[in-house]
């Protein structure tokens, strides 16, 4: 099951990354990219919450870094 969530999250991340690259190449405009990135964000969190949410915390997690 974890690999399914990982795949969903990776898809979301790819979608989030693809939009701006397409804007840079001129394939899509900025308003379209905003929709693509919003979709990517939703897909990322659908996959990443069950995938990464249960992982144990690390020593840096209660530290403050700038």
């Amino acid at each position, binding site marked *: 099951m974890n690999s399914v969530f990982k795949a969903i999250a990776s898809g979301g991340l790819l979608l*989030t990354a693809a939009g701006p690259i397409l804007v840079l190449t001129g394939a899509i405009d*900025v308003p379209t990219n905003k929709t693509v990135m919003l979709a*990517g964000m939703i897909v990322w969190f659908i996959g*990443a919450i069950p995938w*990464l949410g249960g992982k144990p915390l690390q020593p*840096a*997690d*209660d*530290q403050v870094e700038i």
Partner: protein
Amino acid sequence: MSETQSSETHAANEEFERRPVPNSALKGPGKFWGMYAGEHTAGTEFMIGPLFLAAGASIQDLIIGLLLGNLLATLTWRFLVTPIAMRKRLTLYYQLERIAGGGAVKLYNFVNGILFCFLAGAMVTVSASAVGVPFNVAFEVPEATFGLGSPQFTLIVLIVGAIIAAIACKGYEMVARVANIAAPWMIVVFAACGLVSYAQMKSGTPFTWDDAVRFIQEKNGVQEFGFWKIVIFGWLCNGAMHFGMADLSIFRFARDKSSGWAPAIGMFLGHYVAWICAALLLAAQIKLHQDPTANPGMLAWRAIGWTGIVCVIIAGWTTANPTIYRAGLAFQGILPGSKRVVMTLVAGIVATLAGAFPNLSGQLLNFVGLYGTVLGPMGAVIFVDFWLMKKLGLREEYASASGTAFHPAVLIAWLLPVGFGLFLVFTNKTFGDFPAYLVIPCWIACGLLYLVLSKLTQKKA
């Protein structure tokens, strides 16, 4: 068994606050690379990046200066912090307690807590700037340092601050999980901001970084942020963590020396890619809207829409939350009978009040330098105690050996250079206009003073 010897038996969730981390709890380099990648792509980046442009830094200086500064920061973590962390395997606080005494640690912690409140305040402002965008609430930066923004913006700051403080009262675990979940996505979002902004600057009539700097300087007056200033800032903005040895608490878990290189990923993703991308947001905004306001929420909204709003809110919140939590712990240390929840609320209230003054977050470049100047020198005490005391025939960890709560040599060595540094900062004397310049002089002065004073006081003892 001596106090500094490690024991292999421990509970799964033990934090080893008063004993060395045992071998069975050590972590491989991969964990550290993952941790640092997420830790330095945070709310501060949305604020610091645009401030470089607003301060008049050239893009060439920024690209090369940050490269050098981040390299120096990484080397400092690797060769200053990691060796001591791996030999002692103790938290910064416990090492300081053994050297300076419990009372001195409380004082250090209290000062740290106050500074944390202002850092958290800046992050509350960052989150509020994003919350205000959908409600059409303007982010106005008044002239006066302690001037409030619009009443609506102040109200949003108060609501956001109250929510963050309430969540911090419950601890840091839940928010740390949110931060871990969001970290990889946030790195991509920062890069996206840079790519979209660059595309916006290129499209139609080309608009360069220099055009943006010129526009800001015509509006706000000429400012200078040259190459060496950028190098020093890149190197020392985390001065409290490397020169100040705060990250001993992290690297005490390192199994391998190579873990000491892990901050490189934080530096080059967060303090390089993210800063430059965030700065490009402001350049593109100036081109498209003739608006030089470094409003993180609006900058992200204009470039990438709702994704930007969510990213700025999460980035600000996940930075403010552990900051308020740790400030609460620091205040609780001063008043041992107090409840952590109450002290966290106090820290949250101070942070929220600080967040209501937008100009304070606009001073983040200077604040970060001040933070390193005040806390960094304590790292020199640890450095001297670890590397030099024994070689010079002096006793290490003197407070632990003598049973004192305030080792005067440490206090004088810390407070004297820091006091002088603060005098320079607040009277705007040489170097005082950029507090990050003072981190290394104060660090060296503190180390030397500690050595000389130890020689005097330990002989008397």
